[in-house]
């Protein structure tokens, strides 16, 4: 019997202040007991709304505006809260997107388990403790952490605790909403393996929501692809990989490549999803679709069965009709949109450029005094490398490996304890150490930074024109028309065109990719020699990462800057960088030309980072 049966479900947001929008539109699917289903789509596609609606956790101004949800034979679409309470956690449970914060900070972990277990089962006292111990074993955490407070656990451990909490009452169905976003690749990898293993052992059904098709493909039996509030493709994972039907799926698949190849190509889906508060004619993906035909602009494609799956695409259906291949071309597997290509030759030439920054045997020790004891932590130890003009060096390592400390020393915020950093600038060599006041300000006209989170690095209270004009005013003393012209030039430089349409916008009106472009434009404003890019793509949708990588790559080529690219993701390091330095516990464990390191990793740590790259191919 079907465990979860969703029919024609629609969710409508009706905010008081703005136009209503249908975030989920007529979605129909079902999940069998023990099935692992992935749900993918980019941010704003309605996947989280759909998940929340399934758990009946929608909050005003959102509401289920049509259709039905049947769970285990009961229609829960309109079930009163009191009856829902019986079902939640016992039969359907969840790990939330922001689950880093979903543990109560003032209650010990054990207490949070106890609450849930005692509420829904007859276990009491010692029996509950035994059950918690069992759950901790399941998610591979030492039971000694049972009495810890949530802040004493690392991010990965907290996420495992959340998973254990969701499993506490042997539910039949678990909703995982991007459970590993914000975690390290290696940790992410191990948690997801854990999930898959437990799912196989215990046979609960999972709906796994993610924007990252790579991880979803690794884990799921079946995949639903969501775009603009609708399911556009529904296929088994194997079939989807072999023959993706919808062009959007092809676009998502294109965001992965094999980093070991001589030439790597990754594609991206340009543009952004449509505004759902407007009525659309035709297919909602058509404006971004390289395969569209006249029909797409006129008729909305229905979700129809095809090749054992379902798809909502005119072209896919027509191509597979009798004689369709002749009239509409053979079905294609790849996404024929813009792509970003990196060849091994480019890197070879870049490595001969002039050195702009040299890091010589640098160590950094932090001392912390607690009472009479002095604890010394060596965050970075004996690191040396050189950064060249027109070249990208990738600094790879997981959190806590010392990459941020190194970045702070290079940007002149911290002083190295040992060793030295020398900046070979236009006005001669300069020793970089913890600059203060005016010296720091002056150094920043040579070294700029691109931040990890484009959502918090643009002042929400300021217009883009203002944001971009400040460095120009401060470092170049531009005024009036000249200033305005230069701001426009910068916007156009990062392909935010026409500049007039962006100059008076606020940061939050843009998509993540566009915001990151603004940050890059701002870094370029002072015409720096070095840009330190601290995980600039990790908080972006996988499908648009390539466009930012491409922009950075163009900058290196055209403006002759050196980029220090900090990341935990070896695939993006391969796409962008010429040289890679792998950092583990503050020490350089591997260093060399990117392709060489990736093809023949010598260190175990590098290997584990490579294994963590989802490789659906």
């Amino acid at each position: 019997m079907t465990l979860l049966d969703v029919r024609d479900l629609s969710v409508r947001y009706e905010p008081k202040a703005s136009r209503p929008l249908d975030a989920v539109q007529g979605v129909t699917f079902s999940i069998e007991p023990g099935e692992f289903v992935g749900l993918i789509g980019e941010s704003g596609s309605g996947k989280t709304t759909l998940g929340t609606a399934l758990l009946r956790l929608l909050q005003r101004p959102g509401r289920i505006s049509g259709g039905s949800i049947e769970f285990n034979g009961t229609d829960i679409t309109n079930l009163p809260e009191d009856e829902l309470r019986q079902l939640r956690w016992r039969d359907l449970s969840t790990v939330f997107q922001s689950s880093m914060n979903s543990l109560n900070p003032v209650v010990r972990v054990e207490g949070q388990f106890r609450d849930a277990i005692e509420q829904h089962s007859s276990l009491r006292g010692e029996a509950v403790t035994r059950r918690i111990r069992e759950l901790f074993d399941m998610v591979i955490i030492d039971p000694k952490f049972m009495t810890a407070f949530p802040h004493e656990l690392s991010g990965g451990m907290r996420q495992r605790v959340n998973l254990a909490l969701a499993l506490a009452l042997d539910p039949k169905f678990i909703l995982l909403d991007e459970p590993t976003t914000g975690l390290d690749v290696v940790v992410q990898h191990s948690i997801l393996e854990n999930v898959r293993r437990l799912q196989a052992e215990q046979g609960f059904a999972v709906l796994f929501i993610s924007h990252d098709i790579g991880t979803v493909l690794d884990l799921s039996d079946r995949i639903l692809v969501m775009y603009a509030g609708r399911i556009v493709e529904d296929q088994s994972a194997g079939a989807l990989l072999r023959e993706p039907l919808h062009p959007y799926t092809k676009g998502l698949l294109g965001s992965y490549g094999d980093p070991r190849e001589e030439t790597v190509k990754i594609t991206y889906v340009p543009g952004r999803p449509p505004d759902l508060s407007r009525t659309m004619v035709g297919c909602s993906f058509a404006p971004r679709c390289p395969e569209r035909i006249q029909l797409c602009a006129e008729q909305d494609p229905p979700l129809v069965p095809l090749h054992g799956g379902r798809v909502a695409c005119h072209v896919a259906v027509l191509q597979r009709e009798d004689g369709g291949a002749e009239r509409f071309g053979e079905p294609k597997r790849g996404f024929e949109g813009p792509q970003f290509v990196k060849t091994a030759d480019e890197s070879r030439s870049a490595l001969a450029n002039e050195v702009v920054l040299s890091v010589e045997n640098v160590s950094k020790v932090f001392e912390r005094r607690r009472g009479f004891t002095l604890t010394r932590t060596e965050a970075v130890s004996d690191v040396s490398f050189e950064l060249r003009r027109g070249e990208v060096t990738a600094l790879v390592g997981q959190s806590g490996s010392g990459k941020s400390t190194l970045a702070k020393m290079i940007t002149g915020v911290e002083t190295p304890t040992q060793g030295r950093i020398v900046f070979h600038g236009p006005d001669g060599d300069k020793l970089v150490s913890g600059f203060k006041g005016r010296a720091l300000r002056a150094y920043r006209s040579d070294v700029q930074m691109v931040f990890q989170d484009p959502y918090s690095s643009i002042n929400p209270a300021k217009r883009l024109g203002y944001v971009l004009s400040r460095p120009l005013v401060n470092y170049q003393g531009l005024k009036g028309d000249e200033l305005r012209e230069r701001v426009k030039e910068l916007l156009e430089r990062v392909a935010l065109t026409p500049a007039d349409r962006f100059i008076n916008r606020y940061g939050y009106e843009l998509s993540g990719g566009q915001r990151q472009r603004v940050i890059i434009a701002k870094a370029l404003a002072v015409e720096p020699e070095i840009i330190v890019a601290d995980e600039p793509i990790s908080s972006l949708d996988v499908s648009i990462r390539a466009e930012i990588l491409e922009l950075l790559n163009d900058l290196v080529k055209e403006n002759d800057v050196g980029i220090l690219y900090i990341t935990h993701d070896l695939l993006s390091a391969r796409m962008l960088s010429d040289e890679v330095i792998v950092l583990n516990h503050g020490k350089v464990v591997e260093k060399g030309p990117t392709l060489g390191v990736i093809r023949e990793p010598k260190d175990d740590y590098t290997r584990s980072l490579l294994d963590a790259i989802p490789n659906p191919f």
Partner: protein
Amino acid sequence: MTTTPVPTPGEDFMPPTESDLAVEQVSDVETPDQWWQVIWSSKKARVGIIVLAIYVLVAIFAPLIAPHDPLDGSFEPLAGPSSTNWLGTTTSGQDIASQLIYGARISLLVGLFGGLFATVIATVIGLTSGYAEGTLLDDGLSFLTNVFLVIPVFPLIITLVAYSEVRGLWLIVGVVAITSWAGAARAKRSQIITLRNRDFVTAAKFSGEGTWRIIFREIMPNMSSLVLASFVGAATGAIAAEAGLAALGLGDSRNVSWGTMLYQSNAQGAIAQGLWLWVFAPGLVLAILMTATTFINFGVDLLSNPHLREDA
């Protein structure tokens, strides 16, 4: 580096050109509501704003509205309400209605300037000490804030006013401002501590901004709702403090305010004599003004917490 999309063969295909595919558009979400729109959207705040507007108009046009000079003692003392004296007269033969109308001027001025000065002090001290958290400057400013927090405010005000030579409006404004900023400074300090580590602050440092500009041009606009809310709170407090001081006889006897009216009525034993209007009229207008500012604060709350907007 980029390869443009390959044109697709087949007659029925529209060849997608680069310009077609360059769908890098800005969403057409309209600019979000301005702060005044948000405040106006709350029913309570609307009521508060309308009431306040009436008070302001009455204060501005007091000479036109008031039937008599408030200090003119030529009427029959202790008269009941009549067509010449709408609310009757005081023991010294002054028109209560006129006093009430002129009294609005003092109360509103004290509210406006007392609130303004207190907010300015609180903002400068709170933001500076929060931004410099952990330094000696912060320790010093926090110490100062704490001192002002623990001093019993009302006795201090009374002492200050009692010993001062002049008893003008500005003395009251000044005293109210320097005694009431501390709590708001605390709130602002903790707010800026959460904001100062945001990436956009670091980004501003990288674009070469100085400390003052970062605090007041980059960070402060992001906490405008808190600043506005503390202004409304401080203004309400200032109006109440002025009335309280005047009612204790520490006001400026040459001016008429609701507080001095209350003081006079109390001193003359208005309640014992059954002159209810003399006591209730100033008390009531004061209470309505407080309520109005509190209502406006409901609207201001919506600014700082967008989640509340749906329920407004």
